């Protein structure tokens, strides 16, 4: 199962790298991409990535009200919810998952990846 992890410069990207240093579960292939802030990621970009073979997208960014760009995470949350609603309507079982972290907090990312794996096993 492939997961694309998009991390924001200040918190998400370093945190995802640190999680992967610790080695993640074998049946998971995580492709890490860094963006300057989670607010940069458009819905069309998320859908385009989901057209590939990735079955989940993990958006790792700063907590909602302490984003370095004030509203980046809030935008990302709204867009993720909209894309999930679109995918629901289209009965596609791919999802966008959010994790709010600071640079060296890896537990939310590990939780999010574990939830992705459980959901995928439950569906297949």
């Amino acid at each position, binding site marked *: 199962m492939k997961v694309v992890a998009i991390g924001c410069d200040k918190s998400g990207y370093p945190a995802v790298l640190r999680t992967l240093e*610790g080695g993640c579960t074998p049946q998971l292939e995580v492709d890490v991409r860094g963006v300057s802030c989670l607010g940069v990621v458009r819905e069309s970009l998320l859908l385009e990535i989901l057209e590939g073979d990735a079955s989940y997208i993990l958006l790792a960014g700063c*907590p*909602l*009200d302490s984003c370095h760009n004030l509203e980046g995470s809030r935008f990302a949350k709204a867009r993720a919810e909209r894309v999930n609603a679109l995918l629901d309507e289209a009965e596609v079982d791919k999802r966008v998952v*959010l994790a*709010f*972290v*600071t*640079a*060296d907090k890896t537990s939310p990312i590990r939780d999010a990846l574990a939830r992705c794996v459980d959901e995928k096993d439950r569906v297949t």
Partner: protein
Amino acid sequence: MQLSHDIVVIGSGVSGLSVARGLYNQGLDVLVVERNDTVGGTAWSLGCKATHECLSCGICRVVEQKRELESQGFPGTLKKNTGISTVEREGNGFFIKTEKEEFRARCIVVATGIEPYPAEQAANLGFGTYPGVFSGIDLERELNEKGLEACAAFERVAFIQCVGSRSFKEKRGYCSQVCCCYALRLCENLKYRFPEMQIDMYYMDLQLLGEKKDTLKRIARERVELFRHLPFRIERVDGEDEISPLLLRFEDPEKVTRSRYDAVVLSVGMIPSSGTRDIARKLQLTQDTNGFIKNLGGGKTSAPGIFVTGGAWGPTDVQGCLRDAAVTSETILVSLREGKT
């Protein structure tokens, strides 16, 4: 080899590093002496307590400091695993001797900080004897890597406040200022992760401080059951197996009440770290009744030329340390400029 530095900072915790950064940027020659082999002291080991919302616990200031260390390099030189053995005054500077070498300095900054109160010493609260008793600081330390997985199986958790502080009997008559805040943030994290968990909090007075005090008030009111009552003893429910629930006994004048919990978290307060006590003895600095080094205002101590910053003169949180570091480095610059140290 005899080296002379402008400033020697003892302790490389959050306050030590920010004073070093402040003075290094002003072009002074700074030496940071650290007792054990990792930089960072208490604050660096703590975890960020944000759920999807930030609870402004200040740990991202620690992340900012780590980031500065990585991109701008260490402010001055760092000596790890070196303890100070003797300090003598010499002219208007100091002659410092450690196990391995000695060096001169014009000023000394004591930034040895605070450490959590060892929960074992809490009288009959069962830390160490019963598996279900945690200390608040241990939960916090695992927050970054493991998260709160350890508490997955519990349904009823009790938080006991003011463990090891606010008791004049044991010569610790001060409020550690941080434990109510971090306990409420831990409760928010627990309820966020395990919504059906029932949390009770036993406390004397809630100290709601910092930027997000209204959020803390909302947490205290909605997410936690409050009891203004400190338990007397923790026991095991007798006759049951290893992981049976714990029992909190309360000595009321009329009757003894008991309540059962799966786990108990002791919100341990902050005490002067062993380094602070040891340095205060070696530098003969006057201490206040609770063992902290006395701060005569702006970081000055009883001995001219020696300054104190951060947790060493009073329990405080990360933001308080950074604010205090700015004040102390300002006083040092002024005193250095006027030539009298």
